[in-house]
């Protein structure tokens, strides 16, 4: 019987087309997700790696469980309907009187719905399997060895437990309330739980909790493969153990328990509607008004249909709908839950930017809230679109409301107003919670105006547009779920996936923008307004469409609706449509004119094609001898109000090669307009390509080695109209920050303009490309990290800007003056320097300190003065230290400059350090364990030596001599200011970041000596770790001495630039022979340890003397570049430290360890409490938390 009922339920589902549409969608979305590494795999960074197999087991698992989330609402429908079907169609009396046991009834219905859900969900695995069979889009190259098991495993471990859990909950909710509505609320709450869990997962302390509240095990699975390298990910099945096992047991357990209770408690008795139980109060009093009076009263009213009546009706509908929305308990549940999560997320992440505590400035609060509220608003828009269109029909009210003499537009616009009104209320809630969070963090610089502009100016409008879309789609599709899916497809990146990237294609989109305190919205405002106007016109057309098709009455067939359409089509609708269409076309043309005619528009594909073209066309000139720049003198005129900049000047070029030069390859920033390019030698233009910024000249007389030649240039950049994307935020009204490549032409082919992604290169038939040339690449060795066309230059610039701004570049300020209402600044380098300079202009306040006779200045937005003193202190502390350890600081000034928060980072140029508004200036220093000022300022000041004084060759490992050494510089400053505890816990976090970083490596991990571009986890995290360990092995003084010697030998070096191995050679020379293997392992190999304490016991041997025996394990592996591990026998010098009850060190000694399992015994003075292997985290240890053991003390002497 149970199977009979189950089969009945399943058949019911299978008879519906929508079931199969969901299934096909699952197949399609999964297929596309796998081959493109997008959509459901968006969360998995490495899914886009060309080295990752498309059938890597962990990807399949992730796909299966993340699609469970996507399918939650489908499960809602299936289970909700299965449980309430009999109530809804009022057949309960019939069904419940049949001789079926409740086990059969409930169980059968549940199984039927579960099987139907399983059918849809397993579409994900079928889609993945399809990739194996039909590997399109380049997937053919990424197929691992096929095995069916990785496809089956996620169904049993992932999908089925997920279905049991959500199914039980939804089923129980539907059975106990007899309604399907609460089930959807439950579905939304499960989705919000995932949102909450993924926020918790971001922090190591709450990671475990996150694993336990993510019902579908996305995060728990992530914890299991989190530290795996690519090689392991490609083949290894997720082990059913640890957090994953726990998660699966918990949620399957909850599901089964709920089902058990349901079987026990379920009653077949019909539950009467609550209303019927209310005894009716029958009033017997005489009627004051008789039928005749009523008739007269009825006749006395005058129905009207003038415009004022219409407005009043519309308002009444609006009020009525608002009441219904806000008294809907499911809506309230979603709203309260969502707001709670947003505030919770806000508390956690507001005031933290890249792990740095930050003042909760309004712009930052809005960023964080955008994420949290985005999802909530989207859910609410979808929820309300269904409510507004379907509620009247669901409640059986439409049957007497539909024939009321109200035109469709009054009804629809009244409802729409309720939707927009609700969204406005939510924006007010968002604003209130934002201000609440700011106040609780003690931040009182409130900016209600900014809240209103942001929340109501654009975001409210955006969701209102989506609301109009959702309502219209519900009207047109006339099917709740399909309506949702269609809406999501239209407003999500589905359109972008089809290659239509211009924002004009994706409904409601405007070019992305960022608010900055320095410039406000200025750089984006024109675009935002134009796009929004465009979308408003489009939505007016949607509204007309909805009015024409709005269902009124019983006929929902296509034919009847088209007949009705003819009746509804009217002159006024025609008028509105024509007006809106005209408006839309005008705005569309205006936008297209701005974004593609005034500005250069390229889709991602077009950019790739241009890059390929560049490489195919010009790669051949990479090896031809070129001139080097030896001197730069220029004039840069910045016009902040007109958003334009002119750069003109003169370069002295010299043939530093051994070959004669007859051709000059000039490269310019391709957005710039080249007005003039001339040489002092007679020349003629061979080729000119504005598209690539390439200008090739031939010299009439050959330039012999050592000869020089001058080049004059005049190039301009101006902002015209607005862009669709890649808005040029370097050039803005306040806080312009341009680099040398923007304003200075340079010589020679630029390999950084090549297409980087090797997967894509293959598609375009380009050879495999290393991110950096090999360490012995001849061409690479000729240039340095900055480029190929210059080593050191004499630099001089006259900058001008508007009278209220200050212009800044490298060099020392020689003179500044006012002329023609503009300000001029003349900068000149005192020392020859690298050709790598910024051009900055803004309305700044300035603070100055003198250090050893040179000015150290900070230029900042007048309101951002919180940290300027600390930043100056840290800069001066760093300068003082590096001046001693490395070499004297060579430039005549040091300038720290704030730039808008379009990028959250700090940079370094010779003598200038630009820092983002969103990074240091708003950082909150008090209460920080390791203040930003020391970490970041010391790092950037360190860059003044590495690479601006010691420039490494532009080959693999170049980041050793820049980033790794800048990190070491930061370590030196930190060590000067903080004690070991702070440093140990800081290092622990570095180890974690490194392990996580290497796990998401899409390409190859290199040892530090060959570190590549973009592998931050190697040069920032592992680099710092290795230097920290090396410093301990060699001793700080010895190491610093070796580095000092290296700087002395290579400072402002002309000729072949040093490489990483050169510095490692200096380390080796400073180290005893016994440490050479260790240095080799630190810098030239990838070694990972797993050290673990097992047991520690001690016995008293004399008064206050104990003999302590410590058992521990040392596991050591060497990884290859893809993460394949090879076990090594340890041979390491490791710290062993004993602490007493007060955490004081009783004993600290290094021992050589040569085995995996070890026992060490040592005598300590004082009562030992804790002993640890490598307690200061000098080795890269997979688990740093199991290194300590408490000491068991036995009393026997």
């Amino acid at each position, binding site marked *: 019987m149970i199977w009979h009922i189950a089969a009945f339920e399943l058949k019911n589902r299978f008879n519906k087309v929508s079931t199969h549409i969901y299934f096909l969608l699952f197949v399609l979305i999964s297929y596309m997700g796998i081959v493109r590494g997008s959509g459901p795999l968006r969360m998995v960074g490495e899914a886009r790696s060309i080295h990752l197999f498309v059938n890597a087991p962990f990807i399949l698992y992730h796909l299966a469980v993340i699609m469970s989330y996507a399918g939650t609402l489908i499960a809602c429908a299936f289970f909700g309907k299965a449980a309430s079907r009999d109530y809804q169609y009022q057949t309960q009396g019939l069904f419940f009187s049949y001789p079926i046991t409740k086990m059969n009834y409930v169980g059968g219905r549940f199984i039927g719905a579960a099987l139907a859900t399983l059918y849809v969900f397993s579409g994900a695995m079928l889609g993945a399997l399809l990739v194996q069979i039909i590997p399109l889009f380049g997937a053919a190259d990424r197929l691992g060895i096929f095995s069916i098991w990785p496809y089956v495993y996620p169904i049993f471990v992932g999908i089925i437990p997920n279905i049991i859990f959500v199914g039980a909950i939804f089923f129980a909710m539907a059975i106990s309330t007899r309604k399907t509505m609460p089930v959807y609320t439950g579905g939304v709450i499960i989705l919000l739980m995932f949102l909450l869990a993924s926020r918790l997962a971001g922090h190591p302390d709450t990671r475990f909790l996150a694993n336990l509240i993510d019902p579908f095990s996305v995060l728990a699975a992530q914890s299991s493969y989190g530290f795996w390298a690519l090689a392991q990910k490609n083949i290894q099945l997720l082990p059913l153990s640890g957090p994953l096992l726990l998660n699966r047991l918990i949620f399957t357990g909850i599901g089964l328990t709920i089902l058990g209770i349901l079987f026990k408690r379920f009653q077949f008795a019909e539950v009467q509607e609550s209303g019927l139980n209310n005894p009716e109060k029958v009033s017997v009093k005489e009627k004051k*008004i008789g039928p005749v009076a009523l008739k007269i009263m009825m006749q006395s009213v005058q129905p009207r249909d003038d415009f004022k009546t219409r407005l009043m009706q519309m308002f009444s509908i609006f009020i009525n709908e608002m009441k219904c929305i806000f008294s809907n308990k499911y809506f309230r549940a979603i709203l309260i839950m969502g707001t709670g999560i947003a505030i919770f997320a806000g508390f956690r992440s507001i005031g933290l930017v890249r792990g740095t505590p930050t003042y909760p400035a309004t712009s930052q609060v809005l960023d964080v809230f955008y994420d949290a509220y985005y999802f909530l608003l989207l859910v609410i828009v979808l929820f309300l679109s269904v409510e507004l269109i379907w509620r009247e029909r669901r409640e059986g009210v439409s*049957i007497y409301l539909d024939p009321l*003499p109200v035109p469709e537009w009054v009804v629809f616009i009244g409802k729409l107003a309720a939707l927009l009104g609700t969204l406005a209320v939510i924006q007010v809630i968002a604003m209130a919670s934002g201000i609440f969070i700011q106040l609780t963090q003690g931040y009182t610089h409130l900016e209600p105006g900014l809240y209103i502009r942001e929340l109501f100016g654009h975001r409210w409008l955006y969701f209102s547009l989506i609301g109009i879309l959702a309502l219209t789609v519900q009207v047109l599709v006339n099917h709740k779920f399909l309506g949702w899916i269609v809406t999501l497809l239209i407003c999500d990146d589905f359109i972008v996936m089809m290659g239509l990237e211009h924002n004009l294609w994706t409904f409601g989109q405007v070019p992305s923008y960022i608010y900055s305190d320095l410039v406000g919205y200025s750089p984006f405002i024109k675009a935002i307004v134009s796009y929004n106007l465009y979308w408003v016109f489009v939505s007016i057309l949607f509204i007309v469409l909805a009015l024409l098709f709005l269902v009124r009455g*019983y006929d929902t067939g296509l034919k009847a609706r088209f007949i009705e359409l003819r*009746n509804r089509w009217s002159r006024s609708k025609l008028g509105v449509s024509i007006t809106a269409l005209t408006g839309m076309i005008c705005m569309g043309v205006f936008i297209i004119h701005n974004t593609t005619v005034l500005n250069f528009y390229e889709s991602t594909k077009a950019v790739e094609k241009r890059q390929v073209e560049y490489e195919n066309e010009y790669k051949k000139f990479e090896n031809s001898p070129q001139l080097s720049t030896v001197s730069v003198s220029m004039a840069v005129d910045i016009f902040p109000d007109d958003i334009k900049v002119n750069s003109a000047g003169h370069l002295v070029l010299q043939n530093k090669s051994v070959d004669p030069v007859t051709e000059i390859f000039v490269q310019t920033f391709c957005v710039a307009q080249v007005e003039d390019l001339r040489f002092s030698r007679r020349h003629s233009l061979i080729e000119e390509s504005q598209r690539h910024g390439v200008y090739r000249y031939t010299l009439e007389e050959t330039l012999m080695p050592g000869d020089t030649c001058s080049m004059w240039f005049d190039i301009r950049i101006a902002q015209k109209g607005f862009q669709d994307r890649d808005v040029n935020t370097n050039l803005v009204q306040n806080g312009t920050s341009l680099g040398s490549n923007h304003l200075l032409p340079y010589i020679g082919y630029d390999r950084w303009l090549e297409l980087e992604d090797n997967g894509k290169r293959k598609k375009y038939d380009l050879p495999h490309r290393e991110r950096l040339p090999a360490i012995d690449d001849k061409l690479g060795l000729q240039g340095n990290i900055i480029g190929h066309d210059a080593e050191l230059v004499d630099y001089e610039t006259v900058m001008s800007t508007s009278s209220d701004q200050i212009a800044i570049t490298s060099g020392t300020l020689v003179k500044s003056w006012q002329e023609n209402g503009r300000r001029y600044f003349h900068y000149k380098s005192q020392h020859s320097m690298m050709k790598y300079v910024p051009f900055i202009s803004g309305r700044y306040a300035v603070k100055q300190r003198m250090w050893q006779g040179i000015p150290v200045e900070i230029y900042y937005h007048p309101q951002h003065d919180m940290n300027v003193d600390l930043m100056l202190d840290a800069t001066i502390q760093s300068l003082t230290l590096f001046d001693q350890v490395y070499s004297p600081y060579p430039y005549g000034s040091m300038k720290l400059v704030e730039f808008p928060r379009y990028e959250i980072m700090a940079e370094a140029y010779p003598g200038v350090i630009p820092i983002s508004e969103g990074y240091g200036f708003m950082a909150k220093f008090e209460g920080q364990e390791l203040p930003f000022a020391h970490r970041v300022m010391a790092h950037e000041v360190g860059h003044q030596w590495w690479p601006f004084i010691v420039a490494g060759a532009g080959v693999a490992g170049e980041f050793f001599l820049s980033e790794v050494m800048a990190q070491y510089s930061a370590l030196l400053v930190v060590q000067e200011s903080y004690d070991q505890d702070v440093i140990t816990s800081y290092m622990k976090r570095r180890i974690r970041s490194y392990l996580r970083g290497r796990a998401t490596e899409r390409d190859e991990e290199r040892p530090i000596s060959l570190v590549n571009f973009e592998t931050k986890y190697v040069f920032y995290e592992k680099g710092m770790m290795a230097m920290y360990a090396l410093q301990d092995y060699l001793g700080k003084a010895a190491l610093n001495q070796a580095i000092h010697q290296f700087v002395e030998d290579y400072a402002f070096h002309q000729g072949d630039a040093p490489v990483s191995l050169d510095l490692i050679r200096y380390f080796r020379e400073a180290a005893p022979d016994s440490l050479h293997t260790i240095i080799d392992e630190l810098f030239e190999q990838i070694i990972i340890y797993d050290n673990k304490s097992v047991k520690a016991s001690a016995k008293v041997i004399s008064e206050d003397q104990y003999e302590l025996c410590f058992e521990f394990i040392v596991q050591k592996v060497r990884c290859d570049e893809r993460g394949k591990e090879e076990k090594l026998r340890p041979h390491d010098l490791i710290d062993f430290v004993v602490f007493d009850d007060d955490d004081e060190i009783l004993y600290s000694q290094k021992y050589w360890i040569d085995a995996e399992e070890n026992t060490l015994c040592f005598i300590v003075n004082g009562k030992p409490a804790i002993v640890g292997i490598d307690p200061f985290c000098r080795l890269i240890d997979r688990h740093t938390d199991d290194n300590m053991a408490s000491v068991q003390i036995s009393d026997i002497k």
Partner: protein
Amino acid sequence: MKLEIQSLSKTYSNGVRALKGIDMVFSNGMFGLLGPNGAGKSTLMRIIATLQVPDQGCIIIDGKDIKQSRQDVRKILGYLPQSFGVYPDVSAEEMLNHIILLKGIRNKRKRNILVEALLEQTNLIDVRKRKLGGFSGGMKQRFGIAQALAGNPELLIVDEPTAGLDPEERNRFHNILSEISEDRIVILSTHIVDDVRQLCDQMAILHEGEILYYGRTVDAIDNVNGKIWQKIINKDEIADYHEQHEIVLSRLYAGKICIHVYHSTQPEGFEPVEADLEDMYFKTIKKIV
């Protein structure tokens, strides 16, 4: 006012032919539409109430085809559907006020007076602040009546209006209907023959989508008067009588069965009885000739 229905047909997508070419004319006064369940009554009501579109035929009000201007019907329409729902979280008073405004009465004072009068008449005045979700079936039905009467509908369509009402309520509602029907068309759709006999001057019998009788109520009874014969029989005899006679109706009578048959002459053993509308109704839908 005059409402004409001309060869109206409606077939549902599942093949059910709800109406098979119906012609009728309504003028002021009460019109009874009798028919068993599934006869097509509700479909007809809904088509007149602009909730459905006929496949063929048209409805003409005062010479105007409503296909072109459904809005014109809506302006004069009051409609009480057979089954309907309410917003659970809104009070009767608010909802009624809202509906009256939607009917185009924008004067707030008049609206309030009318709401009160309607609530008074439907005996809901004491529960006017109560949420509709807490209403019993009978209260809901009365609310439905109130909303149908709201405004000044010149065309009032009531579909099974007295279902769930107690006799006193039913009586009161009948009084209202007969009072207001003088200057408007009231179409009463029901399967309760008594209601039609009491209230309606004109009537029609609808069965399987076809009109079997159309005319004055008194004429309908006259049609069969003198041709209905009655006999009281034992329960176990009923099968025999079914074979021999065409039984118009049978009802229990003091533990026995009283049967009516239609015959132009008196059958043996039967006695004459004064014909009722019920006899006419069953005779018609059973197609006894």
